[in-house]
């Protein structure tokens, strides 16, 4: 029998969450005052959880590595947040959101968790509006929606291209209210270095004060990790520079199973790589695919001309363009899910049709010319201009596009020095989000008692591919509406426990280990900076564990990453000391963990002998190049148990049961 129990409540899918809530243990308000909860990370998941737990009456200690909780990387989410409100009356429902998410995830997520997510999605919008989140509205004063990839309804709520910022500021404001009341104790510029387990239960963390370098012990009755994803294992990604896997990885090394590490989302629309000194990649929101058409030249010589600058894209005739998404997927067109769009771009660029002159010619066009003309003609009609000139139509159309995506267009122009109103954007897929993460049960608890993982840090809701605008939904669902119930059920057993001491041998040992690891890095006296190793790791990951994976490549990656890790410990140079603000030391610790995770990541990809969602194995594809799932053998969650060497982890299979949807080959044609 597997060690894993997903604890899915009995009963029909649509009643599970209600029944669950009706039957859990509650903690009375007086007792909540005696219970401490640590929340690590203050993005949408961590921030909303910290605020809600404090509102309920628990004593919350919240930690973030940034200088303010408002800066967690959820803030960079652009496009929107999904909710099954059906305000547009276009046939949306809880079931449809659930179904789209399961299908979008290529049938590799857990039905009960996803249904609950869809169910609470509507509450999120109500809550955010009550908090003063300025969502986009129409002229009647009601909330506006737009459409995202992989679905046929408009259920995405948005605040221009800054939805993540506005939602995070909402959660941050809820936190502020509790910080003012003393119910949340906030630790900015603190990084969690280890979780402390006492008698089999998570009872605290070891954290480093990043300003003073001091190593601190913090105890609690439960520990919640809302520490985000690990896309930076690829070095270049759309994640923030500081986004890291350390908290989740340390939890893994303390016994928490790591689930589906190989499920990574490579987002189709990012600004292409420009050079070797590049430090990160920038996303261009998926919402742009509502109006942008993706294409490459039909002829190889045109592609070459574009790359060497002798041919302008606007001079390529309509019949010489290959709108390959519209060609291959007529029913979803440019709004196919992210994994499908990314692979299709890679396929064209591999075949020589790429339009960016970087090492690998990686780039395709995202073109707004048609939308500008369409909107322009519409506006001319509305404004009563008869027989408008071409210039008038273009100007009116550009105005509409500016209203919808102005800040994204500005950002693109700033980075590339190209004007996307006049010439198509050049884009290429980039690492964006990790669907994998710590294994959790229905309660969002890891297999370590009292340790919870929420938001991107867990694996639970997106299967092998996340749909656009669903990350914000999941983060807030977990933090505002799910965890506050499930953690109460657990903490109800802790009302007589009393304060957890930080003087125990377990805290002692964890602190010593954290200090030893820091000293090892500081005293290493190597010759190469941290980034040197991080970039090399990133290249191995991108080339061998990226968008297309093979047995051979993955086997090589496992060996190469292990060797690189050894080299890192021999030759890394970390300047400065441990007892001061030391950004290189912070980076070194994070890269050390990425060097371990990368190896497990490749092993997971190797063992999953099928293609599903963002995981694409060259050996498993259909005749027309689509992902070939093998449900008979791989309809399970891979949950890895740490044993010492990352790739020697033990695989536990958490079988996925589908009782409410029929497993089909995902088709967007």
């Amino acid at each position: 029998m597997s060690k894993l129990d997903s604890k899915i409540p009995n009963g029909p899918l649509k009643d599970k969450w209600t029944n669950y809530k009706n039957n859990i243990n509650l903690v009375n308000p007086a007792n909540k005052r005696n219970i401490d909860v640590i929340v690590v990370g203050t993005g949408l998941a961590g921030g909303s959880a910290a605020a809600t737990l404090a509102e309920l009456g628990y004593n919350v200690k919240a930690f973030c590595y940034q200088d303010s909780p408002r800066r967690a990387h959820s803030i960079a989410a652009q496009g929107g947040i999904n909710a099954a409100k059906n305000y547009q009356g276009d046939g949306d429902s809880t079931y449809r959101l659930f179904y789209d998410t399961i299908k979008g995830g290529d049938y590799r997520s857990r039905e009960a968790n996803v249904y609950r997510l869809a169910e609470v999605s509507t509450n999120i919008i109500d809550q955010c509006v009550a908090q003063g989140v300025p969502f986009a509205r129409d002229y009647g004063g009601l909330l506006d929606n737009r459409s995202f990839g992989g679905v046929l309804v408009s259920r995405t709520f948005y605040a221009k291209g800054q939805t993540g910022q506005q939602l995070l500021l909402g959660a941050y404001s809820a936190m502020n209210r509790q910080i003012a009341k003393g119910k949340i104790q906030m630790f900015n510029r603190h990084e969690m270095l280890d979780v402390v387990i006492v008698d089999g239960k998570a009872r605290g963390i070891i954290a480093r004060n990043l300003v003073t370098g001091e190593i601190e012990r913090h105890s609690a009755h439960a520990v919640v990790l809302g520490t985000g994803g690990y896309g930076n294992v690829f070095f270049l990604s759309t994640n923030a520079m500081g986004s890291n896997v350390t908290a989740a990885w340390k939890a893994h090394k303390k016994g928490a199973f790591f689930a589906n590490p190989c499920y990574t989302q490579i987002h189709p629309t990012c600004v292409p790589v420009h050079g070797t000194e590049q430090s990160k990649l920038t996303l261009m929101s998926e919402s742009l695919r509502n109006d942008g058409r993706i294409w490459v030249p039909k002829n190889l010589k045109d592609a070459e001309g574009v790359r060497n600058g002798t041919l302008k894209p606007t001079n390529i005739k309509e019949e010489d363009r290959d709108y390959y998404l519209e060609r291959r997927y007529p029913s979803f067109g440019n709004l196919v899910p992210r994994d499908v769009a990314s692979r299709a771009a890679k396929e064209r660029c591999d075949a020589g049709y790429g339009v960016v002159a970087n090492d690998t010619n990686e780039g395709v066009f995202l073109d707004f010319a048609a939308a500008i003309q369409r909107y322009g003609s519409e506006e001319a009609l509305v404004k009563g201009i008869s027989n408008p000139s071409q210039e008038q139509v273009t100007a009116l159309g550009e105005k509409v596009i500016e209203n919808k995506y102005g800040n994204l267009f500005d950002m693109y122009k700033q980075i590339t020095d190209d004007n996307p109103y006049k010439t198509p954007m050049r884009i290429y897929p980039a690492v964006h989000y990790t669907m994998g993460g710590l294994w959790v049960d229905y309660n969002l608890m890891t297999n370590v008692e009292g340790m919870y993982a929420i938001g991107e840090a867990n694996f639970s809701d997106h299967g092998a591919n996340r749909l656009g605008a669903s990350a914000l939904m999941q983060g807030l669902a977990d933090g505002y509406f799910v965890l506050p119930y499930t953690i109460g059920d657990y903490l109800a057993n802790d009302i007589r426990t009393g304060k957890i001491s930080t003087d125990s041998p377990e805290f002692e040992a964890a602190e010593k280990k954290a200090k030893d690891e820091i000293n090892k890095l500081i005293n290493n006296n190597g010759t190469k900076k941290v980034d040197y190793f991080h970039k090399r790791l990133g290249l191995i990951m991108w080339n061998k564990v990226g968008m297309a994976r093979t047995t051979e490549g993955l086997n090589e990656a496992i060996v190469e990453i292990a060797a690189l890790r050894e080299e890192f410990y021999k030759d890394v140079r970390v300047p400065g000391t441990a007892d001061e603000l030391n950004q290189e030391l912070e980076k070194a610790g994070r890269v050390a963990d990425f060097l371990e995770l990368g190896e497990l990541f490749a092993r997971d990809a190797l063992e999953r002998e099928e293609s599903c969602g963002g995981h694409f194995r060259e050996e498993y594809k259909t005749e027309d190049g689509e992902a070939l799932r093998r449900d008979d053998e791989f309809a399970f969650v891979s949950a890895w148990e740490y044993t010492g060497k990352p790739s020697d982890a033990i695989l536990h299979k958490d079988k996925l049961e589908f009782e409410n949807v029929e497993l089909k080959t995902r088709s967007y044609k």
Partner: protein
Amino acid sequence: MSAEKTLNLTLKVWRQKNNNAKGSLETYPVKDISPGSSFLEMLDILNGGLIEKGESPVTFDHDCREGICGSCSLYINGEPHGPARLVTTCQLHMRSFKDGETIYIEPFRAKAFPVIKDLMVDRSAFDRIQHAGGYISVNTSGNTQDANSIPIEKENADEAFYSAACIGCGACVAACKNASASLFVAAKVSQYALLPQGKVEAKDRVLNMVKQAEKEGFGPCSNTGACEVECPKGISIENIARMNREFLSASISK
């Protein structure tokens, strides 16, 4: 891209070991910088060289590197976030500079933003101003009324959004000769004042937030408008006028 002419520059960078230490401007040459590189990538290159030479790299705040988290700061050639308008330092590209140029890089300076190290300052005063009232007192119940039950005039919703676009970077303070936080406070006050949900607590909010800003040591506003010019998100000083109206009416009626 790769064919572009690269830049050789002289950097004058503020170095300060910690809050108690005395700081000074140090000179560093950097070579072969691509105009397509971002300003922070240029600093990464500088730091890489310093580390290789066994020297201490320059400390600066940065995170998202796409202009939204508000971590990055830097006072570049006398302007917060440098010479380009409507961008943060992380979105500033080296094509904004000329080959051979000398660039002065200092921290955001204000009494309420003490230097932590080199170019990194402590902006937690902004957090404390928000603790004083930067929120609407609504609990997470899941039973708030339906999001569409109160229509909000599009114009007000849009205005509230423009105010809410503040990223809390502190450029307004750094740009101001009085180191005033008025634009920052006004943006938050305005966002809530423009929305029906925010009106209930509007009076206490503006009084408490303004009081806290004074307590933190930010100076008064003398309407020079420098904050608006330097704000990477284009927050308008109309927000300050709105805050002043809110403040006045709250002072009279409270």
